[in-house]
């Protein structure tokens, strides 16, 4: 398997949008309830291919809940989520990565006892075909498969500057590095859509600066469409094409970063209280 092109071909985004009529994701009136709590209340938005959408909102607004609907951990009581025009709601959780949706978790969800390399290789699981028997017998084609999975992992390990620690147990690494491992793992299945749940959470200032740059590069060089949940406003405002704001499960604003930043409801609900 070949590594992704090092130099991205810049397709003008407007042209790309015109070529693909249907958006990559189409969230339609999604409602999620937990007992009495309405975690998502008829939320709708679309995201064209190769755009970067920021999803903001105070704690408890329902952002992670929406991600968990994408991951099929939660099922909306009504509404639908379309990916490339197809509903994903009939798919089981383990059949989401293989259609090209990758994610990171708000609270790290790494395989703690495994090395960085192995974590990233687990991320590329959907690209493999081997099973218990062929792996136990180490059939020649599984050896080739292992090699190609390792190549993918190493390319990402280099991309995220994790080469020095590739063989270390992830649990022993500093927090910022663990977050990068999660990112590498989420990219390992070559997703078309990447869901990032508060990637800047817990990082220091320099790390956050590098992260914004990195997210842009992931979109531009790897042609990944990104849905970014983030509290770090200056980062969201500087890198996102579009922003959707949630509050108590409702969409309260949508538009360019500048528009959303000016929105009265958003200021009231969010920026007014926890402005960063």
């Amino acid at each position, binding site marked *: 398997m070949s590594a992704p092109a090092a130099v991205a071909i810049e397709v003008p985004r407007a042209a790309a949008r015109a070529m693909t009529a249907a958006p990559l994701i189409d969230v339609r009136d999604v409602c999620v309830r937990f007992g009495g709590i309405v975690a998502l209340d008829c939320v709708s938005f679309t995201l064209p291919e190769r755009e970067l959408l920021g999803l903001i909102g105070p704690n408890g607004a329902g952002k992670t809940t929406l991600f968990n609907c994408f991951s099929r951990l939660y099922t909306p009581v009504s509404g639908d989520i379309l990916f490339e025009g197809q509903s994903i709601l009939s798919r089981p959780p383990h059949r989401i*990565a293989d259609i090209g949706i990758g994610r990171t978790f708000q609270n790290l969800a790494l395989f*703690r*006892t*495994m090395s960085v390399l192995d974590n990233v290789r687990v991320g590329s*699981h*959907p690209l493999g075909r081997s099973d218990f028997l062929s792996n*136990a017998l*180490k059939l020649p084609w599984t050896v080739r*498969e292992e090699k190609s999975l390792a190549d993918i992992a190493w390319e990402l390990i280099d991309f995220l500057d994790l080469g020095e620690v590739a*063989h270390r147990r992830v649990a022993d690494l500093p927090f910022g590095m663990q977050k990068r491992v999660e990112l590498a793992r989420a990219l390992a299945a070559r997703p078309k859509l990447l869901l990032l749940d508060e990637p800047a959470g817990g990082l220091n200032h320099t790390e956050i600066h590098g992260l914004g740059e990195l997210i842009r590069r992931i979109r531009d060089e790897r042609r990944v469409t990104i849905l970014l949940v983030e509290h770090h406003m200056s980062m969201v405002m500087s890198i996102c094409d579009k922003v959707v704001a949630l509050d108590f499960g409702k969409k309260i604003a949508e538009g360019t970063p500048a528009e959303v930043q000016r929105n009265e409801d958003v200021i009231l609900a969010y920026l007014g209280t926890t402005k960063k």
Partner: protein
Amino acid sequence: MMLRRTIETRGPPAAEVAGMATPAWRVIVFVLGIVVLATIPFVLKNFYIFQITLAVIYAIAILGLNLLTGFNGQFSLGHSAFYAIGAYTAAIMMDGFDISYIWTLPAAAMVCFVFGFLFGLPALRLENIYLALATFALAIAIPQVLKSSLVEHWTGGVQGISIIKPDAPFGLPLNSDQWLYVYTILVAVVMYVGAHNLVKSRTGRALIAIRDHPIAASAMGINVSLYKSLTFGVSALYTGVAGALGALAISFVAPDSFTFQLAVALFVGLVVGGVASISGTLFGGLFVLFVPNIAEHFSKGLAGAVYGVILLLVIYLMPTGAAGLVRLIVSRLVQQGRASGR
């Protein structure tokens, strides 16, 4: 950059290098192991050959348990059941149907795989301690089932089944104990190589990922339920093959050889050998076989107490099992070697 990459993909992960033998070490240990194994049948008395055969058989059973518990994080206090099913499959085939002992292992493997898989399916719904309880129920039930009048015709009821020890093939100059030893070692090599390959593969990483974080594993595209029940099947397969080998070695099966005590013994072997360690299971097998004898040697009346004390000592001295201890020692040696080399 490229150079480093090719070197590192070949070497063992540093998570292991930190504590495990360097390749040169491994080769030496491997060659020594082969030499020792090959000389055993010619220098030891038959009884000891038989005992070592049994220890290796237990090791294979413990390896099966380790794939399930150590690598996949599913508990079992009922592996005596799979051992029993393997043993009875072999005994019934040989005694009731006159089938050659050669075929008993693949048959026991298949039967136990299916049984384990089917048991693993509903067990998916159970979390840790409940799963331990369900497997415990299995361990309790099996000896009774084997005795029951419904299946007595095949199982021989309480009496069990006697079978004839196989002789060495091709006119090899080995007595039956020596041959069974050789046969067991050959089977063990296949089983250990298979387990090693499995654990170091895409499938093996999926098993460990499920143990470490099932939700993340499923987000990475791993079919958690399927892998868990297949692991149950494979684990039962290993333990069932061990059971079949055990039946051949002892040339007798009876329900009361496969009580809950055996399940606990396998669990003890797993822990003292090292959770999620493949080579550690060999130590586990030796421990399970010899330590009760040693305890009895100390004091007939207090054998149980002595065994308990030995077990406690082992757990305190090697909290990560024999494999953990070896890893620690080797990493110390490697560090010292580096320090003095500089």
